[in-house]
């Protein structure tokens, strides 16, 4: 783990405003083999506390890898990740879980299928706490979870003891979202969390996402596969290509942007030789 070194330079001069600071992050998968992929090539990104950033880019451009880098599912080859002024580059995912929570694209990934709705919620409640052999899932806590599940408006409050595996993908994803915010994280990472859902469930989950983020002022990084969503969601939109950030569209800029403008932006980037022709094609195909 050559890159897993604490960045001493940035210590002590933490800007209260900055929640996430990613500096020159590099990650190569399967180095030295035929499957070698340089997935992140020196990515730097800063997010203010409470900022809501959407991330777009073609398939394989490294969006999920960047999110994983923040969540800590792997340690970077070089570069640093700071969360709330703390260098977490050398922390594993379970150590960062206290501050970072996430919702995956696959609705089956974020919940334990064979456990009940309350047990899953209780797992979320235990995030960042030590689990002792004591019965923490008391009657009172069940009532708390019942109230929270009501927020989803999916009638799940009547199915608290049902096994998650019996719920629909939309219900599971909505629950995963609830589980992600239940323990008040500092950072929320959403990786195409509506991509696997039918349009109706997707709209429902997006609606919940907005509500929860607004209510808790969460610093959020969301990967999306819909140009419309990219424009509607978030204060900023960041575009990735081949493991690099190639564009960063601010809130002001976004307000006047349409989907077509965004595509024009792609074309501009193409002219500036930051996108190849087939990349542009791929973007058009994927986002329209």
């Amino acid at each position: 783990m050559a890159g897993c070194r604490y960045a001493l330079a940035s210590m002590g001069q933490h800007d209260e405003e900055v929640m996430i600071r990613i500096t020159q992050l590099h990650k190569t998968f399967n180095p030295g083999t035929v499957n070698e992929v340089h997935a992140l090539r020196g990515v730097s990104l800063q997010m203010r506390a409470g900022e809501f950033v959407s991330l777009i880019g073609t398939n394989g451009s490294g969006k999920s890898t960047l999110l994983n880098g923040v969540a800590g599912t792997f340690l970077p080859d070089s570069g640093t990740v700071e969360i709330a002024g703390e260098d977490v580059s050398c922390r594993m995912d379970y150590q960062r879980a206290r501050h970072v929570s996430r919702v995956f694209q696959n609705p089956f990934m974020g919940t334990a299928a064979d456990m009940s709705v309350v047990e899953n919620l209780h797992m979320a409640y235990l995030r960042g706490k030590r689990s002792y052999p004591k019965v923490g899932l008391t009657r009172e806590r069940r009532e708390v979870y019942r109230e929270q599940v009501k927020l989803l408006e999916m009638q799940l409050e009547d199915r608290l003891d049902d096994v998650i595996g019996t719920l629909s993908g939309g219900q599971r994803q909505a629950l995963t979202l609830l589980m992600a915010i239940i323990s008040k994280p500092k950072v929320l990472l959403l990786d195409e969390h509506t991509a696997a859902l039918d349009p109706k469930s997707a709209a429902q989950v997006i609606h919940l996402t907005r509500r929860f983020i607004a209510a808790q002022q969460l610093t959020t990084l969301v990967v999306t596969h819909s140009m419309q969503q990219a424009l509607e969601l978030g204060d900023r939109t960041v575009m990735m290509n081949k493991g690099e950030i190639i564009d960063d569209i601010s809130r002001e800029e976004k307000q006047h942007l349409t989907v077509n403008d965004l595509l024009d932006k792609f074309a501009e980037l193409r002219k500036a030789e930051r996108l190849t022709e087939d990349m542009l094609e791929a973007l058009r195909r994927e986002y329209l």
Partner: protein
Amino acid sequence: MELWIGALNLGFLYAFMTMGVFLTFRVHDFPDITVDGSFTSGAALAAVLIVAKVHPLIALLAAFAVGAAAGAATSFINTRFNVNGLLAGILVMTGLYSINLHIMGRSNIPLLDQATFPDYLEAVNPGLHPEAWITLILLPVMLAFWLLTGLFFKTDLGISMRATGNNPIMAAAAGVDVARMKTFGVALANGLVGVSGGLVAQYQGFADIGMGMGTIVIGLAAVIIGESLIRSRSLYAKVLSVIVGSIIFRMLIAGALFLGMNPIDLKLLTAVFVLTTLVASRALTHGTGLTEDRRRWSLSQPIWRRIGLGAAALLTAMVLVWTYRTPGGVPNPSSRTAKIGVLQISDHGLLNITRDSLIEELARLGYKNGDHCTIDLANANGDLPTVNTILDKFIQDGMDVIVPISTPCTQAAINKVKDRPVVFATVANPFIIGAGRSATDHLSNVTGVYGWVPMDKTMELVRSIIPGRMRIGSIWDPAHANSVFNVTLLEDAIRGNPDVTLIGATISSSSEVYQAALSLVQKDIDAFLLVPDNIVYSAFESVVKAARPKHIPIFLSDVERLGDGALGALGYDYTASGIQAARLVERVLKGENPRDIPFERYHQLTVGINLKVAKELGMTIPQGVLEKATRVYGGDNSRAVLDAAQ
């Protein structure tokens, strides 16, 4: 009744192991083979401590610790070095074999004279049948175990553990150190397996290096049986199903024995049963299409599927038991004639010879099966828990005398059978297993025939053919108490003779014998002298193959193997063991008290020489030796076998 109570008690004791298997296989989704080793580790450490006068409960705590350490090792290898879990389990299980031998210092520790938990219970027995008393005590223990385990799964730690097994990605995202949690879970599971081993060792009266073999299959079978009978979503029901599965599994074996099924088919029955239940369950849960949901049997199945599965499992069990039922095996309870139960540990040459000569001699004395008496022949096929169940059956069937052939059977028999005579046969040394202090001072209901091969006489035979300086090579399995004992006898026979050097090689399986023999040939030995050792003798041809190119003569103790390429053999005629035992059985049946019958040594020695091999080796056999030989093979006269004794 004894058969069923005994099975119930075994089921209780094995329930801890089954819970361990449930924890790894169902909760952590990983079939952990470590249990084959950790079961023995628990038994070994508990036995050693009990011999050192440690209280059985403390010994069980230690058994838990050693099992947990084994489980932690497996999980550590699995999670930190990224070695496949199954492989990690196999590695640790293999390593544990050596560690267990080190713990015990030998392959078998008798606990007959030691204060074990049944003894502690017996001391406060208000006058019930000992087995029933154990059941009565174990019932509340199991109840507590059930409730505590169920409760554990509902605690924060239990929920985190289940989530880790069910969806490690989600668990990690929720802040669980998956590797550590898995290590904790597998350690806990193997700790329970160790406790089970410690309990079973105390219950059966000894710990043995081989007692953990096949534990994983028994555990899986019990888990699956339990699941197919109790299919509820409730955690308490699931935990209960594990305990019930363990009991039902023992009951099925007892039932199979009750119906007269050949125990040789028990392993096959178990394997087929597990497979059928698995396949039936797979077929029934098929179609949900969700891998996550299919990975473990979904608990969300409609009720008819659960009923179908339970029915399928029961039907399989019934069909198998019915299929394997052998006619004439059902005991006839009305006959009031002499009843003899004969039990051997496995289908081994010497044991078969003993059994056949015993039956023959009994017949000659007027005890013929179905005629004036019932003779029930049982074979445990190497499975120690089965030995106990067979003994329970003998007691239940009201046997007048029980005849265990071989050391392990005798060990189990003298531990379990207190109320009727036991006549053992073909036991090398009955004193080390606690049957008695001397031939006349022994357990009051026990007598029998025994004997170890006189290695001094064997050495005499070797020296009379090969005088002068010589290097003797020998191969044995250090895990077998008998083999080690025989090597000690050989060393004693050689001691004081500066001309003779012993060079040893040890093995742990028959496939290693050839290499061991080659290594000895490499060390320029002048002769092989093979002490009695089941594994080495079963691979005798390998020794011949290694010795022949260098013209090295082979001596051994089994005259029956002489024709396979040995030069000389000196040993006991195991027909004598059977015959002498039959005569003791007769005396007991005639009313003599076993207490007053001294243990007998076999007395009929056989000495054999293979002249054909001698010719090949270019050796001459002194006339004096040939005159003493009871059997001479080959030779110039073209007769294949010349039995000089006749």
